[in-house]
């Protein structure tokens, strides 16, 4: 994010009323103790975004349903803020195993879901063509350029 974009966002976060409409609307906050978008915004304001979330496990529970920002009276993009917090944790090697596996699938086949012989047989039985091959070299090159290949290395476990 550029410096001006960071300033814009911080300015926007300063509008937060701490009214907790985000948390009250959040389907995750109802079922997971300690998951609280209002508190995450407060911590960003008090300690800075890079130090806001110490318990990275919790933030990954976001469903990305975007209800929080839809209902925020100041239109704060809570979803984008959470994505950036997750991105920062991932860059430090803290990434849920299932998401790492999905990314590894994309790197290997171009698709997030594992492809199997059973699936190809079913497709044939339904009169569908075999799955097309994806350009995995191009996918892997973009992953390298964006640093995603490093997230897949075992040392991140």
């Amino acid at each position, binding site marked *: 994010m*550029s410096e001006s974009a960071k300033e814009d966002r911080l300015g926007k976060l300063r509008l937060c009323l701490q009214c907790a409409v985000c948390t009250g609307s959040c389907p995750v906050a109802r079922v997971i103790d300690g998951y609280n978008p209002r508190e995450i915004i407060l911590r960003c304001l008090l300690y800075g975004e890079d130090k806001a979330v110490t318990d990275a496990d919790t933030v990954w529970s*976001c469903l990305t349903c975007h209800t929080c920002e839809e209902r925020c009276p100041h239109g704060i993009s809570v979803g984008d803020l959470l994505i950036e917090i997750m991105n920062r944790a991932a860059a430090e090697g803290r990434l849920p195993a299932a998401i790492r596996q999905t990314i590894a699938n994309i790197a290997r086949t171009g698709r997030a879901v594992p492809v199997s012989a059973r699936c190809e047989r079913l497709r044939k039985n339904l009169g569908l063509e075999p799955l097309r091959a994806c350009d995995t070299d191009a996918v892997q090159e973009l992953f390298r350029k964006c640093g995603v290949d490093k997230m897949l290395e075992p040392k991140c476990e």
Partner: protein
Amino acid sequence: MRIAFFPGCVIPIRYPGIEAATRFLAAKTGLDLVDMSFHCCPSPTGLKEASAGAWFALALANLRMAEAEGLDVVTICSGCGNTLREARKIYCGDEDKRAAVRELFDGEAFQGRTDVHHLPDLLARDETLDRLEAECVRPLEGLRVATHYGCHYFRPSSVMGGEDGSPEYPLPESMELILESLGAEIVDYGRPDLCCGAALAYNVGKTDESLRVLSEKLDEITRAEADAIVTPCPACLAQFDAGQSALGRKDKDQKLTPVYHIAELVACALGADLKRLDGKRHKVKAPLLLT
């Protein structure tokens, strides 16, 4: 209308019957689907959370494939539709981010000409609704349907709202228009915009919590006495289907409501060979797809 077909990952691999249904209804409604070698969209609940930069780059790489053929894109998954529309919007509106991806692609990644449509949006156009009414051979009369769009179909409204900037919020009505034209009755239920909770299970393994979110939604649908749940998203479909099945194993009194992808119901109503729709893949018995 020639259009690039974006089947996504979940449907061609886990639910190929939905792909078959889409191909059938496309032929019936004048959509000429062009197959391309698209990779994962990628999902707004997966790669984007690890690296928004890589998510953006892969989405643009998909869009430029369609643009090279001069085609718009049609999606059959709310996640794919969201990612491709958001990436297009960011690219066309954020000079900083556009400059950053120019380096990745050694030049301009995309011109912004290719637009992205979710299947229900195309089917809900007036001329196509007329065609659905005319071609319907298995009317859905008497079927009480609860629609579930999936969060990414319509949120955030800043990305998923109409071309004129008007938000489709709280909810779109494309599926209502389609299903009514095929004879179904739409039932209103509480909190239709509530998330299905799927990502809590498949991203972080919190299956019980995921089912608690689903149960809140199911309670409302059951109260409205719906015969069927219809969604345009395979992730939501899997959550409703496998989730109800899991809840039913724990509680014998759990009401099980059949779940359909919108393409399955449309193809069924338009007279598709049901054996090609693979209805037995559904865990909760889906009677309209069974011969």
